[in-house]
């Protein structure tokens, strides 16, 4: 069920990228899709009523949350941040050059 919601979030993001004409909305769609993937990856490692995986003395190793996806997603979030910053900067420069955020008016390149 929760995976399905993740998937629909991802679909919303992709829909946003494909259909919207405003550059900023496309960037937001990109962000939504990215976070859907991150959420999905985190959920794969999650266990219901699990606890933090800290290995100390006389601790029983049971019902722990898998820490690896969390570490990976931290990296993925940083990557996502870099992409977002770059793409926003490019969008701003496009606005300076073309005077519009409308993607249909930004077309100097053909086919």
């Amino acid at each position: 069920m929760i995976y399905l919601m993740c998937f629909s979030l991802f679909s919303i993001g992709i829909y946003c990228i494909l259909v919207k004409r405003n550059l900023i909305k496309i960037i937001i769609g990109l962000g939504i899709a990215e976070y859907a993937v991150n959420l999905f990856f985190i959920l794969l490692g999650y266990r219901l009523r699990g606890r933090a995986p800290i290995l100390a003395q006389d601790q029983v190793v049971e019902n722990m949350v898998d820490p690896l996806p969390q570490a990976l997603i931290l990296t993925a979030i940083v990557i996502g941040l870099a992409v977002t910053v770059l793409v926003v900067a490019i969008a701003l420069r496009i606005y300076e050059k073309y005077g519009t955020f409308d993607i249909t008016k930004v077309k100097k390149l053909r086919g």
Partner: protein
Amino acid sequence: MKHELIPLFVAIPLGSAFLISLLGKRLKGLADTLSNLATFSLLFLSFLSITLVKRLGVVVYKVGGWIPPIGICMVLDSLTSFMLITVNLVAFLVTVYSISYMERYTSKWKFYTLFLLMLAGMDGVIVTGDLFNLFVFLEIASIASYALVAFGVEHEELEASFKYTVMGSVASSFILIGIALLYSYTSSLNMADISRVLTEKGNSRILSFVSGLFIMGFGLKAALVPFHAWLPDAHPSAPAPISAMLSGVLIKALGVYALMRIFFNVLGISSILSYMLMSLGVISMVLGGLLALGQEDIKRLFAYSSISQIGFVVLGIGMGTTLGILAGLFHLFNHATFKSLLFLNSGSIEYATGTRDLRKMGGLTAKMPVTGYSSLIGSMSISGIPPLSGFWSKLLIILAAIEAKHFIFASIAVLVSILTLAYYLKVQRLAFFGELKDSLRGIKEVPLTMKLSMIALSIICIFGGLLLVPGIQKNFLSSATQALMNGNNYAQIIFGSIK
């Protein structure tokens, strides 16, 4: 000295990028010297790695001393060193070229920083033995290339870069979903370990879904046809040395290499998958060629031709036979050299005449002999005129297709090579032969460093066929092919060499 070699492939470009970004603005000339030094040492190390692999077999470096299924590892096998040589050779010649070429732009040091970051990402993708690590390096290289495409900050560059960034990020999301699903199925991220678990667990439906995601993601990075829309915009918009890097090696390191490593060594190739790869290759070949024929912009034409040639490479590798993979890899190497040569030529033309429009050129060979003749060599090589290198690799691909009884694909490949010849003749006729236009009377040949790298690349194009001579072939091409043909034995080889 054997394990410590491997992380250097990432550390050298990353470190130099850091130093250049820190000091490049103040110290003039540091950026040029340091980046050329870095790429040269990388090239040297790549050649060293081939002797190392020959002597010791597969070498594994454990990052941080952790044993691989738990920690990250970096792997050096024959396919890795083959790709490293291809990438670093082009990178070195491109940096030599950009010493003079990049004078046209402001803040050269930013260019070198991004360039070396991209190189670090590419080398990282090639040496890593960990799936998530591969994703991270892939993103480093991609982000640097997004920024480099926009380097000119003019209308076209920005538009192309925006398109490239959005499509590239979507592709990365697909790859990440693929990695997540694979992790949930095998609970491991190490490529060798995944391969081991998959052979134990057997096939399942999730694997075909993961393969589909990877084909979408890496196929977009490799610009195979249904996913190619970004390439004809992005590659011509970048500065010429970057176009050479993007078309020459980036789409191969990020796209084709990752595809073949994952499909052959990790997931294991099936007949449906190989048929899918071949059909994608053939579609790219035909469509790329047809679209190239109609272009008037010289760099755009080259970009479409890249799509077409990548189709040849994927067709060869997708066949999955020894000869097919050998031919595919050989064509990959050749394409890296002659396509970067051609892009550097187009950069020289732009440098001298200030235009990229084929209709405004003419008779350039008289004024620019080095550019003219080296581009003649490049064009003849890519269109498969014997005895230049492109002829041998295309011949091998066609022979491999016949050997594997794919007669339709073989005949399409023959037709597309004729098509390739047609559009390269168009370039030669419009740009280099014929009357010199009045507006171009005053042009001069390009500076020395630019000439040097073009000459070096054309020499490689002429003698590239020598790679098929048995002695060289055994160490270079055949062993790389063998690494792929090993398939799922990859796991045993890696774990065998750890200890």
